[in-house]
Every structure is written in structure tokens, then in C-alpha cells.
């Protein structure tokens, strides 16, 4: 009997020792990245926890189909929030509620609905904050300054250009009129994507996102080879866009209709992200890029606090089983997303970077960080595409007249 007790204590101590050793070694290996650190395949094991797993593998071996990445860690720089937006967010404290079906009640169409999100429904509140995160009132990439680079497995990198414009109709904070334009169609925002590269040159897609978050988007595309503006199927948001792996729901990490999904809070995590993107496309050698994510000595990745949210579709026909997104808690933008197929196997990875700038804000200037690049990689087919900007005009006062179906193909 005594012997058994001794044996049990011995095994307990052994297990305790193993746990201590394992835990201790983790502490030793997973050192927090510091500004000036360089992370490459030789030391990624130490920093793996600070990346989404698929980004870590890009560093480790480039997934076997692109060049392994070296990350340079930079000094963190706070992602800003506008004054008007911040004030509106503070005023929303405690006033906005979730309805039983997960929709917002009492949201005044300005600011974050949940300034300090907490359980219950924390994941859903974070997603609503992302949905209504601070944006400029309009942005514009004219003259084909939105560049996309893409590569089929084993092939050369293809390069295309487009012009891209966006106008916020509501939730405006800087360019008069605020907070809303003359808005008879009750739009939240509208975008206009105009291809500048043959053979699709002149193909322009107009998207209307309504203020009502439940209402499906409306989309029209002007097709030069038909001289026609065609209404697009906008209800199938899981469909790939123009032959790429990117779907409408993938844009900005997650752009699905919020009520169509379930949300689970996975946890809070410090993550290295590129939120201080430096180079425009014209700064790149030969104005070319050959990788699905952005890196280099010029690009400081920073440690940011992120929320991990798992998003699962309610519709069983939806072609993915789940999506995990990393939401930066400073400005509620998604920097990474991991997408899993119907069998639960990892399928696609989404990457996004941000760039700091200063914008006109009615009565002064505001610091602002905009999405500078976004891309997606299909790891099953080894196809990737990355969009990056060569210039960006913000808050220039775009007019509603260019965001109508009739205006498509006008020029």
C-alpha cells in the first residue's frame, strides 16, 4: 500500500516535471519579437506563435511554391481613429444592443456600435465593430493605379491594373455633408472597379452596399465586348471573382452578410502584422511583385493585439466550413484570415496590410491607416493573387453621380 502511494507520488512528480520542462522550453523558444528582429526560416520556430500558421509557413519554406519570406520587425505605431468617429463611438457606449437574431438595435449609423465589447456574444460584437470600423469618406485609385499580381501554379506572375473608387453614403465623418449624403437608395457605400488591362479593359463593376445590413448588395458590370451593363448575380457571395480564388465574402478578410454566419470567440493573441506598409507599387523593382504577401527590409511588421474569431456559415451549401479571422483591436480591421474547405482542411489564406497617411477631415487633418494591399492564396491549387496600390486619393469629395448603373461605361 505504502509502495503504491510512493509510486503514485513519483509519477505525479515526473508528470509535473515534464509539464514544467515543456512549459519552460516554450517560454524560452517563443520569445516575443522585438523591433529590429529579423525572422526567417532559420528562426521561425521561436516566433511561430506570433503569426497565423499559414504565414509562418510562408516564412519557413514558402509552402514549397514561392520564395520563403523574411520578416523585419518594426516599432509599433498606433493605428489611428478619427476625432468625430471616436466621439460617436463613445456616445454609443451602452446604447447599442443585439437583437435576438444578432442584428443591431439603437445604432445611430456612426461610430463603433460596441466601444468596449464584452461577452455575451463577444465574437459577434467584434464583427459588428469591424463592419462599422472607421473609414475615409471616399477613396480613389485613378488611372489604373490598383495593381494585381497573380500566379498560377508553376507559371509566371501576371500583372493587371484597375481603377478603384469608393464612396461612403452614410457613416461619414470628414467630408461634408456628414454623416450622410443625399441618399435616396439608402446606401452604406458604393464601389466602382474598372479594369484597365486588356482584354478586359473597360470592364467596370459597380457595387451598392445598403445601409440595411441584411439586404443583399446590388451589382452591375459594364462589359465592353457587349456594350452592355449587365445586372450581376450578387446573392451568391461565395462565388469567385473574375477567375481568382477571391470571393465577394473574402474581401477585407470577411465581407459576408453578418446574419448568415455564426461567430465564436477563439481568443486574444499578439500577432505580427504589416500595418505600416511603406512602398507603393512604383517603389518596387520593375513595378513588379512576385509573392502573395508583402515583406522586405523596408516593410516593418509590428506586433499588434488581435482578436481571433471563428466564422461558420449557417447555409450548409456554403462552400467552406469555417473562416478564422485576426481582427486588430486598434482599428478593427482584419489583417489575416484562414479559410477551410467543406472537409475542414485548410484551403485559402487571406493577407492584408495597412499604410499610414494623413487625410483632409473637414476642419483639419486626421491620421489614417488605409488598406494598402490585400491578397489571397489557394493552397490546394497553389494559385495566389495580391492587389497593391500605386497611389491613393482620399477624401477628395467624390460625387454620387459616378456610382449609378447608368454611369457605367460612360467614359
Amino acid at each position, binding site marked *: 500500500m505504502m509502495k503504491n502511494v510512493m509510486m503514485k507520488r513519483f509519477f505525479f512528480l515526473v508528470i509535473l516535471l515534464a509539464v514544467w520542462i515543456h512549459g519552460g522550453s516554450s517560454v524560452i523558444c517563443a520569445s516575443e519579437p522585438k523591433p529590429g528582429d529579423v525572422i526567417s526560416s532559420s528562426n521561425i520556430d521561436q516566433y511561430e506563435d506570433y503569426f497565423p500558421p499559414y504565414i509562418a509557413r510562408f516564412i519557413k519554406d514558402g509552402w514549397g511554391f514561392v520564395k520563403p519570406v523574411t520578416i523585419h520587425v518594426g516599432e509599433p505605431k498606433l493605428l489611428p481613429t478619427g476625432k468625430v468617429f471616436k466621439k460617436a463611438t463613445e456616445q454609443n457606449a451602452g446604447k447599442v444592443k443585439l437583437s435576438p437574431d444578432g442584428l443591431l438595435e439603437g445604432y445611430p449609423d456612426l461610430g463603433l456600435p460596441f466601444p468596449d465589447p464584452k461577452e455575451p456574444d463577444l465574437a459577434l460584437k467584434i464583427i459588428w465593430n469591424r463592419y462599422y470600423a472607421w473609414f475615409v469618406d471616399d477613396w480613389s485609385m485613378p488611372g489604373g493605379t490598383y495593381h494585381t499580381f497573380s500566379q498560377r501554379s508553376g507559371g509566371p506572375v501576371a500583372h493587371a491594373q484597375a481603377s478603384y473608387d469608393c464612396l461612403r453614403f452614410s457613416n461619414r465623418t470628414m467630408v461634408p455633408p456628414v454623416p450622410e449624403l443625399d441618399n435616396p437608395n439608402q446606401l452604406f457605400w458604393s464601389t466602382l472597379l474598372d479594369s*484597365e488591362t486588356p482584354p478586359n479593359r473597360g470592364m467596370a463593376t459597380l457595387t451598392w452596399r445598403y445601409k440595411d445590413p441584411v439586404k443583399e448588395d446590388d451589382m452591375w458590370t459594364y462589359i465592353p*465586348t457587349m456594350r452592355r451593363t*449587365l*445586372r450581376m*448575380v450578387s446573392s451568391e457571395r461565395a462565388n469567385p471573382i473574375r477567375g481568382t480564388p477571391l470571393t465577394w465574402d473574402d474581401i477585407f478578410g470577411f465581407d459576408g452578410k453578418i446574419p448568415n454566419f455564426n461567430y465564436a470567440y477563439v481568443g486574444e493573441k499578439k500577432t505580427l502584422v504589416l500595418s505600416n506598409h511603406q512602398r507603393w507599387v512604383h517603389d518596387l523593382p520593375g513595378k513588379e511583385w512576385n509573392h502573395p504577401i508583402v515583406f522586405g527590409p523596408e516593410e516593418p511588421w509590428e506586433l499588434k493585439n488581435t482578436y481571433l474569431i471563428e466564422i461558420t456559415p449557417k447555409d450548409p451549401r456554403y462552400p467552406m466550413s469555417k473562416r478564422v479571422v485576426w481582427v486588430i483591436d486598434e482599428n478593427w480591421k482584419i489583417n489575416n484570415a484562414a479559410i477551410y474547405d467543406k472537409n475542414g482542411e485548410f484551403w485559402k489564406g487571406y493577407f492584408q496590410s495597412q499604410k499610414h497617411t494623413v487625410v483632409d477631415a473637414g476642419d483639419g487633418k486626421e491620421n489614417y491607416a488605409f488598406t494598402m494591399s490585400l491578397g489571397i492564396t489557394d493552397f490546394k491549387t497553389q494559385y495566389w493573387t495580391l492587389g497593391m496600390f500605386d497611389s491613393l486619393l482620399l477624401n477628395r469629395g467624390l460625387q454620387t453621380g459616378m456610382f449609378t448603373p447608368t*454611369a457605367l461605361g460612360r467614359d
Partner: protein
Amino acid sequence: MLKNKYAYNWKVLICLSVFLVIFTSMPSRSNADNLRFGTWTIDGFLRNNTGIWTENWDYSENNDPLATFRNWFRVNLNGEFTENLKLKAEVLAVYESEYHREKGAGIPANHYNQLDFRELRLSWQPTPFHSIRIGKQIVNWGESISARVGDVINPLDARFELGFTNLEDTRMPIWMVRGIHEFISIRSSLDWIYSPYWQPDRYRVNRRESSFGNVNSDGSFTPIARFAAYPETRYESQLGTQNAVISLPFGHPSYPFPDDLGTLVVPGPLFGAPLETAYIGPFPAAEATTIFGPAFAGTPYPDLGLYLARIPNITYDYPDSSLEDARYGFKTSSTFYGWQTGVYFWRANELDPTIRIEGGLQPPGAVTNYVIQYPRQNVYGLYGNKNFDFGVVRVDAAYRPDREYNSLDYVKYPEGIAEKNNLLVQLGLNKDMMIPSLNQHQVFSFILEYVGEFILDSTDRVVLPTTFIRRYKDEHTIFASGSTNYGFGMYTIGLTAIYNFRNTGLVKPSFAYNPDWMNRSWRFELTYTNLFGKDDYVYPYGLFREKDMIVLTTQYSFP
């Protein structure tokens, strides 16, 4: 003709002067913010269509299988003079080889070749809500993809078609002034067009192949144009059918009837030589008997017998350059309850002609004058589209009151012209969907369209103006297409099918390859076109049912 030519020239001069006024009224170059000459781009493509016939429809004992060898070079120039003033110029050059099959068909040299502005226009946008375009333009209204329901503005170049062209390739530009005005507060816009007939003759109306071959006195045949809408079997001894009888070479005045048209007379048991009397088109056998004698009472088709004869006097009544013949119209667009919808109105001369027998058929020995005319026509239309959970619904309707048809009822309509109310409707559905079992990574795009055409009065034996195919009170056509791609656009497969309920249609599978070379700027597409119809006289594909073909299209897009 000469007069028209000069009229055209001085009107072009006026047009250029208008451009000059606009240019000179632009801000000065010193105002760098306004006159920025910012973005100027050039792009375009080189394309070749090489096709072969897979059926032998040859009546000229010439078995050359080459269906087409068409080479395109298109250059687009887009530029900005100021933020509000932009230029678009598109030049199209086309070269086609001589076709052995058409030798002897009387087709003019360089008939298929072209070097012209496909578009040339200035866009002036004084405010974000209003824009004016002046110049040579192409505009497409309506919702239908497969048929020209609201697509009423530009004439078509139908000298080449079927297996390798899309509708856009065949549209011919016209000079016009076009305004687009947005009225955001009422969720609406207005699009208006005013187009004087300031264009060369060949751009005024639909351009069709004019060479339809001859039947020689020994019974042999000379070739016809490859894409002419005239079935060769009509020149067999059979004199016609219940539905179709004759076609005329409607082109533009540059291609008048050949002097030896008399040789066109169909040989056979009834005619041993060209007829002296000028009659064209079918007429009741009783009349034929009266005119030609008892020998003609025994035609195979006594009710609608066909007698081809010398056509001594044909005049063309083309729309002219006068203000009276200007084309104009408008279209509205509004967004309500998820619908984008509107109405349109278009007033212009018809793009396809009718044949008027001036003063009616003349007795033997007298001259009958046939006038090829393009009557004025109003088109009233409405359209709409909406995205539903099951797909995008598109609807389209065009109403033409008192549309002119050719009628074979010469008793009721001595000049062969009957006016009937016409309604054309389209109901379409677009659906994009994933079918993971067939393609895990890319979407399938489906289009389904129903097009119905109705004559809202008694038909009175009306026929199609150009081909004299009989028209019924209603015609129903289904269009369906599906496509998807693999390898993220590297391989695209598609299938298009059209079926008219009178048992005619086409099936067109295609395969395209878009390799990685040179920034994915090359594209190869192989298309097979199968046309079917119970006979040559069913609308719309019976005429072409023996013209199945395979076409390889190679295109390089630049830059």
C-alpha cells in the same frame, strides 16, 4: 449618290468644326490643374479567325472548305484633355483573304476589308451628374443578350457572322450626340440620343451580303457569298415552298443588281428561258395563269408559286441626311425596390428594308418598279432587371406599332406592304453557382432567355422583308448557355444552344485556352457551330442549316 456623298462630306466638316469649337473653348494650357493631359492609354488586339465548313453546301462544284480567314487589328486610344473632357478613338482594320469558294460570285475586290474608325468621340462631363458625348458611337439598350429587343440603335454588319462573331463585333457605329443625366434625388437617369444620318451609306442600315449567285442556263450554279442568307436549294428546280420564295441582294447602292440578273431565272420544267415580264415574288397561281398562260397552272406550289424574272427597275429609298430622317430617342433608368427599370423610345428608319411594288404589279409589257425602302418606325420599350436569391431576372419588351412587312397578299396589299403591330419580348435569367462536384474552384455561369415575337393583328401572309420567310403570329425562341473555367481561367469551356419552336436552332460548344505567356495576353478558342432546321425556310436558322463550321480564334491583346 453623288449628291449624298458631298452632303456627307460637308456634314463631317460641320462635325469637325464643332469639335474645334469645343477644343478652343477648353481651358488654356497654362492652367495645369485643368488641362492635365493626364491619362492616355493605347490598347487593342490582333485577332485571327480561321474556320472551315464541316458540311458541303457547295453548288458551285467548288469544294474549298475555308469558311473564314478574317484578321482583325483594333487599336483603342483613350485620353483626357481635362478632367471633364475625354477622347476615345478606336480604329479597326480588317483583312480577309480571297475565298476560292466565292470566285465568280461577283463579290467586289476588298469587299471584306476595312480600315475605319469604329469609335471616335469626345465626352464632356461638366458635372459628375451630366455628360455629353459627341462623335461616332455604339450604344446598346435593353436587356436581352441573345436577341435585339432593345438593341435598336446601331445597324449590323452581317457580311460575316455565325460561328465566330459575337453581336458586338457586328455592330456598326453611327454619328450621334448622346447625353446622360443623373437625377440622384429621384433615383433616376435620362439617356438621350440624336443622330442625323451623317454617315456613309454603308453605315446607315444593316449591311448584308449581296451576292447570291446565279443559276446558269445549263443548270449549273455560280457561287454565292459565304454568309449570304440565301439557301442554295432555292435555285434547284423547285420553285419555292409554302414559306419562302426569294431573296433580294439588299445591300447599299454601291452594289446594284447585276445587269444579267435575268439569268437568275430558275430553270426547270416551267421556265426554259428568262421571262420577259417583270414580276418578282410569289403570287397566286390563278394570277400566274392569267399572266403567263395555262402552262403555269401546274406549279408545284399553286398557292404560293414562285416565279423569278428579270427585275428591270429597282430603286433604293435610303434614309438621307436630312433632319427629317434623323434618328432620336431616349431611355430612362430608375432604381426602385431592387429593380433597375425604365422605358425607352426610339424613332428611326428601319434597319432592314421592305420591298414596295410601286403602283402594284403591272401587266405584261409594262415595267414594274420595285422600291427597296427603309420605313420610319417608332419603337416603344420597357425593361427591368433585379437580383433575386435564385438569380438575376431580366425583362425586356419592344412594341412597334404599324411595323411594315412584306405581304404576299397582293389583292389586299397591291404594293406588297402590310402594316402590323409587332411586339418583341424577352425574359431572361442569369445564375452563377458553384458545382463543386464538377469544378471545386470556379463558378458556373448560366444564362437562360426566352424571346417571343408577336404580330398582334392578322398576319395576312406577311414575310420577312429580306428573306421572304413566312412570319407567324408568334415565334418562340429559347436561348441557353453555360460556361466555367478551370486552372483559374486557363481553360474555359462553354456551351450555347438556341432553339426556335419551329424546330430550328443551333448548338455551339467551345473551348478556350488562355496560357500564361506574355502576361496572359494570348487566347485561343475553338468553336463548333451546328445549325439545324427542318428545311431552308424556317426562321431563323433554317437558311444556314448547311453551314456548320469549326472556327479557331486566336487573339493577342496588348499592351
